[in-house]
């Protein structure tokens, strides 16, 4: 059985990717399970999707703990514990990463021996209109490393999954998917090996803690303090960062502060200040500032810059 796990951020089309790949498997005659998993998280937050594919009926259920292939749409997710990209990987697990750095660099950085195949980034982070095509590209690349999916089945699967979006969107997705399929076929000398079946006998029950049935006054999830949401660092969702150039800011009527949907820009000492722990990087402020005083900078560059400044200071 093939067990595949997709990782991305909401809005990067990982749900679509898993649907495309699942349908492609199906067209190749496989039994398929395909499920996205997302909860309260939204666009920008880490999400997962799973596929199981087998020639035989699939009895396994639930999340995939030991994947044979992990597909990651955004390499900024790899170091995020919340994303759990490396969770449950085994020695032969293949990792397919959308990144401009090489597989060797990532192997060294993560200190793992797994085969890592990278699919170059093509500027999606900078041009968010391109974001929605990442899914199809990842599905194409995954089909490529799997080796058992034909180009025809891939194209057919994209037609079935995205046909209703109209010819222009369909054509662009198909072109992206087939291009990454071909690129991976040409370059990658890795193969994904199917994991064996997992017998039920040795399954150990998790160490459940039994909770007694309590009165609602005790067991209801009551929050006893206000404003606790600030503990959630939604700044991790950001792929682009808004940066204010104070020499250009004219301290208008604080357009940025009013329009920021998350209310993370406040005015201190007559200057707008962005709370980067919580800014989600929607860039509404960049689009609205009448003085064009806010620039959109790739988060990676901004982090490198902050690190450098911190280094100088110490």
């Amino acid at each position, binding site marked *: 059985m093939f067990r595949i796990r997709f990782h991305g951020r*909401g*809005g990067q089309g990982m749900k679509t990717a898993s649907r495309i790949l699942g349908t492609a498997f199906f067209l190749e005659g496989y039994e398929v399970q395909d499920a996205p998993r997302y909860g*309260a*998280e*939204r*666009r*920008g*937050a880490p999400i997962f999707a799973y596929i199981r594919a087998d020639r035989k009926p699939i009895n396994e259920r639930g999340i995939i703990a030991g994947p044979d292939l992990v597909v990651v749409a955004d390499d900024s997710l790899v170091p995020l514990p919340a994303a759990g990209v490396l969770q449950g990987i085994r020695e032969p697990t293949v990792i397919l990463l959308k990144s401009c750095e090489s597989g060797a660099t990532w192997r060294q950085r993560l200190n793992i021996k797994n085969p890592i195949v990278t699919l170059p980034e093509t500027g999606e982070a900078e041009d*968010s*209109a391109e974001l929605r095509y990442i899914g199809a590209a990842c599905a194409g690349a995954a089909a490529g490393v799997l080796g058992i999916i034909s180009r025809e089945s891939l194209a057919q699967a994209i037609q079935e999954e995205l046909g*209703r*979006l*109209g*010819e*222009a*969107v369909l054509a662009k997705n198909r072109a992206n998917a087939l291009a990454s399929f071909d690129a991976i076929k040409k370059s990658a000398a890795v193969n994904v090996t199917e994991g064996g079946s997992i017998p039920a006998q040795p399954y150990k029950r998790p160490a459940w803690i039994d909770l007694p049935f309590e009165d609602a006054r005790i067991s209801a*999830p009551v*929050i006893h303090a*206000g*404003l*606790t*949401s*600030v*503990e*959630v*660092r*939604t700044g991790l*969702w*950001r792929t682009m960062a808004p940066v204010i150039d104070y020499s250009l800011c004219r301290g208008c*009527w*604080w357009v940025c*502060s*009013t*329009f*920021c*949907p*998350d*209310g*993370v820009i*406040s*005015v201190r000492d007559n200057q*707008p200040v962005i*709370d980067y*722990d*919580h800014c*989600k*990087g*929607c*860039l*509404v402020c*960049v*689009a*609205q500032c009448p003085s064009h005083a806010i620039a959109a900078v790739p988060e990676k560059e901004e982090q490198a810059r902050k690190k450098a400044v911190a280094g100088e200071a110490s």
Partner: protein
Amino acid sequence: MAGKTIRRLQELPSTHLLGTGTPMCAGCGGLEILHEIYDILGPKTVFTNAAGCMSLLSVYPYTPFRGSWLYTAMASAPAAAQGIRDALDILLEKKRIPPGDDLQVITLTGDGSAYGMGLSATSAAMDRNLDFIYLCYDNEGYGNTGQQYSSATPHAALTATSRTSHGYPGYKKDLFSIWAAHRPAYVATVIGAEPLDLAQKVEALQELQGPRLLIGLAPCPTGWGFDPSLTVKIGRLAVETGIWPLKEYRDDRTVHTRIVRHRKPVEEYLQLQDRFRHLFEPERNNREIALIQARIDQYWSKAIDADT
């Protein structure tokens, strides 16, 4: 903030009361409305929230609110508001809380609740002249479950429930008129992209008692298919094209609070959203675009007559 009158954009609050770190999408137009409104209503508030995107605001143990919040089923948020109002009134009457500790009761729901499942409970609350504020953030679909159509979905919008690429065949329900027909204390439409209009309406309704209801158009990058940075631009275009009229009802009269003299063609609004892309690609559907435009023009020719 209550008590202070906001007349100019410069007077809008620039520090915010709603907590950060919420799970709403980046660029959520609904969250923008809520944070703008919350700044004016202040912390002496208690929310009843029907299932929808915003019921994820308070997921144990996190909440962005400074006061209490209660989760309800999709159809029953106004009924929960009644219970809370009654409880507060009893506490006040028995002098178990001082008048200064009274709270404003606010019902917060999406359009799926407001236009559909919860309409009956809202109607009944108005019949009982419940003293509460209702905020519907209208993202024109069942956003939380993947943008299936609701009765707030506009004509031709593609939703997760569309079987064909032509989008929703029906027309958006006129909830403003349905609500106003109950003759409550106050009904208004708002949008986050017009914060001054919004602030003035929220201040106005705070002076009143009884049912006070707001419908805020909530541009939804995820459900409508546009880049999150465009939330305000799309909101403003909704007003400038006339597809989202800003108006208020009180004392038996509806008045438009913003009349756009030279309305922009509606396609400027439609074009920016994936849900309407099929109207422009692979070829332009002139007939449908003209139909949508004609309905807007018809609305405004009637509205301007009625206002004057």
